[in-house]
């Protein structure tokens, strides 16, 4: 009896870590967050993008075929107050009536070492497309992978906040995007 359970424990230790063998191809959107921090008169304010869809393939052993495509529903942005949410739907901001979605399509994902990666790709917002890049960390636990990363979006690149709002002294150009993504091999 005692020997049997010992054998079981040893047997389970012999199984290689699953993360190595898996390709993560499904983002658990309900457990993932895309948040951002913008500065207004020097004051950092946090916001969150509540709704996004993702197509995702990531296997650390096969980076050349890794791919991430995100469709972000801009009407689901909570910029901190109702007043701000109403404002950013306007033409001078995201113009969500004509451009309800933003899209990110990755082009390359490179290993930086120490479970850190750099992703480059094209980001499209409000009819404008720009190359962007960001760094993220990857950690696999059982069959769930966790990706945490940031990148800085310059709002002027996408005409987010035009006219009187273009003044970076009021709302800073740099918007820090923070993503925390949980993925599994569910597909």
């Amino acid at each position, binding site marked *: 009896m005692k020997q049997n359970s010992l054998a079981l424990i040893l047997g389970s230790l012999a199984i290689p870590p699953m993360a190595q063998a898996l390709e993560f191809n499904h983002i658990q959107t309900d457990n993932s967050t895309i948040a951002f921090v913008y500065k*207004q*008169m*020097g*004051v*950092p*304010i*946090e916001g969150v993008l509540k709704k996004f869809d993702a197509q995702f393939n990531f296997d650390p052993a096969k980076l050349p075929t890794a791919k991430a495509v995100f469709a972000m529903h801009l009407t689901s942005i909570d910029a*901190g*107050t109702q*007043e*701000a949410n*109403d*404002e950013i739907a306007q033409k001078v901001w995201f113009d969500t009536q004509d451009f309800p979605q933003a899209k990110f399509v990755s082009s390359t994902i490179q290993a930086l070492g120490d479970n850190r990666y750099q992703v480059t790709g094209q980001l499209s917002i409000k009819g404008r497309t720009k190359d962007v890049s960001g760094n993220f960390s990857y950690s696999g636990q059982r069959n769930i992978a966790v990706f945490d990363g940031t990148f800085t979006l310059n709002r002027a690149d996408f005409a987010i906040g035009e006219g*009187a*709002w273009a*003044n970076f002294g*009021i*709302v800073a150009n740099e918007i820090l995007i923070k993503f925390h993504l949980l993925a599994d091999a569910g597909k």
Partner: protein
Amino acid sequence: MNNDRYTTIAIFLHWLMAILLIALFVVGIYMSDLTLSPAKLQIYAWHKWAGVTVFLLVLIRLAWRFTHRPPALPSKTSTIMRFAAYAGHSLLYLLMIAAPISGWLMSSAKGFQTVYFGILPIPDLLSKNKSLGDILQNVHQNLNFLFIGIVIVHVGAALKHRWLDKDNVLSRILFRHSS
């Protein structure tokens, strides 16, 4: 040295704060009705920076007050009037502290940290909480309406000294004419 006047520093602090507080009150009323615009964000920031400045000034002023005895009231002043003056001035000092603190707490609860001059972040004591923010907005507003009410009484009392009592109680807080 005669002690029938406030010190120059006390006079300077009094009038500097009078100007700041009245400007803050007027701007505060004006800005509360604005719709979102770059100007609104700028005015709110200025209001907060001025509010922090007032808070710092009142600390200096209280330190000065505790180390420099103010001139005594005219000897004919009745006990009731002495008490009224003491209570009025205490309330003014209390409101000079409570008004900026309530504004800072309100701002925190509404999710906006106060960053002095856009450079120095003042830690949030409260985290974002909409209903608490609305309550604190009421508190801030009512404290300031009470404040302006007491200020009007204060001005009225000073003018009463000038015109009815014809004593030096107002002139001892005025800058001396160069002569």
